[in-house]
């Protein structure tokens, strides 16, 4: 406790000396953009940025893993991969060659709530860009042979991931355990077992049911004339059908009351990779600035409480961090770290003790001011390029937010009081006894000691599912 106090005093004296002007610096506002709603439900967002002759786009399709058939997890992700494997008049080879030959890029991806198709082309290739994007979304070939090859590869990608950086796997096991059968717990890429069960017709059906004009937001930023691009995009997308099915509603999140443990056995591991989380608030939560401040202080930057304890002061780990994952109807708050096998319990105890300290009132004015300055100072770095703006516009539209989400963020941060931060700690951040704990590590060495954290379920890393069988 003494050491912590010293830390606080040092920070306080520094802040009072030199932090004053950082607030004045943040001045990034959303540049003007135009919104077009087509009669079939498609939304177009256009923002001219003429500094460089380039156009970036970000097309988002509502659905994602949420709309995977329950026993076919990973279908949306497979469909996303297949979209660029041949579309319109081009087979997969011709499509790849066309994109590469103009130095363009088209990348598809999947998240819990959406599929995205993002990329960029030189301004002079605007016409080709619209054609390719329209083909990918409206006329993907979804060929059987491409499907088989891609499904096989995706299964192997999961196996390969289990042979590398295990810290990237804990959030997948974490969400699966935390949310259980709730759709927010679905592994976005599916599992080895669920992918093996998906058929070609499942993917075709998914496309019919879940991809269509009423589900799509197309955000474009860059070097174009709005009137011209608006008319070519409108022409390309106004004839598109709607998705065959309505969006499913998201059920209520489970309540976590106690603490339980999932142990994932990796017999050859020399470190234990741990993750703890609880269900949490949604994207539209009006307390965003306070949430960001509190998370920054606990685990969102280098000098955060968690990294200070697990890395800087104890040397237990190379890193420790926390984050919110906020979605439309809820989400999670989680922290993660890792340490060598023999230190597993010491490190997890320390992480939970640090969370306890947060609840005991570790945040005071100096830290609050420091975190405000930090978040504000870093915010413009995500608002620099056309592709970042395309992403931001699509995100605002997706969650039903407007430009004030960006433009007023600085003011919202400045307005956060110590009482606001403390309220977030008590109302939103879970106490250490209320969480799901996931540990990937050498089970024989840590199993018995882990039981003290709560009822323990054990699976093997090599098992073909992320979700423990219950």
């Amino acid at each position: 406790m003494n050491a912590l106090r010293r830390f606080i005093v040092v920070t306080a004296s520094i802040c009072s000396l030199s932090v004053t002007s950082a607030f004045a610096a943040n001045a990034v506002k959303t540049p003007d953009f135009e919104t077009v709603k087509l009669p079939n439900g498609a939304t177009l967002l256009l923002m001219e940025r003429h500094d460089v002759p380039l156009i970036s786009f970000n097309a988002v399709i509502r659905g994602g893993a949420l709309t995977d058939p329950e026993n076919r997890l990973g279908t949306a992700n497979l469909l996303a991969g297949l979209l660029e494997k041949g579309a319109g008049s081009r087979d997969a080879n011709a499509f790849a060659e066309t994109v590469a030959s103009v130095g363009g890029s088209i990348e598809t991806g999947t998240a819990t709530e959406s599929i995205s198709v993002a990329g960029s082309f030189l301004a002079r290739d605007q016409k080709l860009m619209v054609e390719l994007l329209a083909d990918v979304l409206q006329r993907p070939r979804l060929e059987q042979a491409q499907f088989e090859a891609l499904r096989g590869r995706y299964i192997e990608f999961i196996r390969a991931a289990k042979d590398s950086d295990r810290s990237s796997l804990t959030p997948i096991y974490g969400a699966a355990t935390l949310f259980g059968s709730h759709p927010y717990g679905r592994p976005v890429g599916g599992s080895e077992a669920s992918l093996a069960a998906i058929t070609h017709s499942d993917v075709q059906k998914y496309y019919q049911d879940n991809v269509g004009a009423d589900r799509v937001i197309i955000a474009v930023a860059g070097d174009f004339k709005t009137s011209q691009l608006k008319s070519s995009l409108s022409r390309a997308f106004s004839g598109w059908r709607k998705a065959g099915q309505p969006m499913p509603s998201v059920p209520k999140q489970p309540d976590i009351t106690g603490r339980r443990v999932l142990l994932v056995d990796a017999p050859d591991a020399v470190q234990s990779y741990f993750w703890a989380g609880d269900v949490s608030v949604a994207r539209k939560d009006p307390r965003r600035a306070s949430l960001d401040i509190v998370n920054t202080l606990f685990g969102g930057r280098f000098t955060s409480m968690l990294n200070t304890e697990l890395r800087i002061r104890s040397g237990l780990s190379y890193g420790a961090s926390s984050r919110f994952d906020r979605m439309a109807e809820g989400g999670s708050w989680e922290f993660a770290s890792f340490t060598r096998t023999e230190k597993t319990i010491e490190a997890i105890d320390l992480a939970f003790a640090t969370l306890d300290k947060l609840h005991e009132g570790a945040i005071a004015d100096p830290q609050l001011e420091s975190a405000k300055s930090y978040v504000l100072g870093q915010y413009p770095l995500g608002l620099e390029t056309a592709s970042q703006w395309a992403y931001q516009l699509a995100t605002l539209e997706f969650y039903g937010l407007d430009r004030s989400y960006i433009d007023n963020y600085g003011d919202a941060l400045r307005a956060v009081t110590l009482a606001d931060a403390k309220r977030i700690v008590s109302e939103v951040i879970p106490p250490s006894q209320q969480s799901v704990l996931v540990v990937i590590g050498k089970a024989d060495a840590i199993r018995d000691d882990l039981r003290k954290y709560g009822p323990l379920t054990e699976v093997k890393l090599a098992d073909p599912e992320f979700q423990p069988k219950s």
Partner: protein
Amino acid sequence: MITRSRLSRMMLWGLALLAPATFAQVPGAKEVRATTLANGMQILVWPDRDIPNVALYNWVRVGSRNEVPGITGLAHFFEHMMFNGTSKRAPGEFDQVLEANGARNNAFTSDDVTVYQDWFPRSALETVFELEADRLRNLSFDPKVVESERNVVHSERRLRVDDSHQGRLQEQVQATAFVAHPYGIPTIGWPSDILSWSIDDLKTFFATYYAPNNCTLILVGDVDPDQVIALAKKYLEPIPSHEPPKLVKTVEPEQLGERRVAVNAEAQTPLVQFAYHGISGSDPRRPALDLLTRVLTDGDASRLHRSLVEEQKLTISADSYFTAGFDPGLIWFFLSLPADGDAAKAEAAFTQQIERVIKDGVTKEELARARSQALADFWRGLATIDGKAQALGTFAVLQGGHEKLFDAPRAYEAVTQADLQKVAAELLRQTNRTVGVLSSPPPADELQTKTGGAE
């Protein structure tokens, strides 16, 4: 390349970014100001006012290339110690002051260089200069912090190498590829050396390499070059220069035949890696080698992806990159196999593709595609202040001068089909490579029989 912290990208989502047109001049290129302080420190400033922020990169010319047995990993460990206190500031204060002023920092170490990075609102400019000067001049070593940080680095090694099959195999291939040159040393360090560095080693290292005349400082963003140079004169110029460090004189002797290394690990998916001796950063063949590796592995239309992944289905991915630093580095190829994959078959198919490119060269269309991709990536890299600082520093320190950055589009245009075939023939020879295979060990009874037979 080994970095200080993984927290870095938490706030910065955003996707890849492209920028100006193919043949255009780099916008703002003429605004780059270059100066050298009286103590020999080089400064480059590139104003870019899209956002009210600044990226600062301090490139120190020291990496694992400057290490010897006993102190492997020291350059990287030193990178960690540069955040851990000076005679004026307690350990941790550097980070606290920066973050309280809206700044984030990180650092990375490679074979050749150690680079310190700060990203901050323009209002923090003078504070950043004061802090950077302080640690360059007054670094101190607290024995307790050294021990704690030793464990941090060991944890980083376990994450990247010991618990990662790609990392484990790559370390072995790199150590096998070099018999004389220190590029064979893993930047993270061998475990026994991580456990045994001393404070004296750190002090010697600081005195030898952390001199202003061994640094190139890059600032890109919302700054006035005159103000930056004035601040550099105020804070950095008073730091005395040192005698230049001893040159690395060892030249890797020519490789006379293929080398092989095997790693046994309980692997779900086998791995095959290839490392060919390549080129240095100032080698004029760099643009041609860049385009050649793109023809082979960049995108779904590339040769190795199409043949190994799509057509023969022998691998699930085929990637490459090459290092080009002060001395000739390695050209790497990485194959990941499916669970029941046959490493020998994948290797044979890979070798066949390499031999084909040596014998028949590349098509006009392939060259044109690779060139478009290279140019697009070049502009993507320059779309952010961070990317500009990285690119400017890479060219200034490792690739023969920062002005060459602005020549890159022209350099790609000048490359011919014959250049690609020639560079393939010169470098991708079988006798010039090391092959590494990672797979599960044979079952225990089989192993015993074999050992018994040998006896």
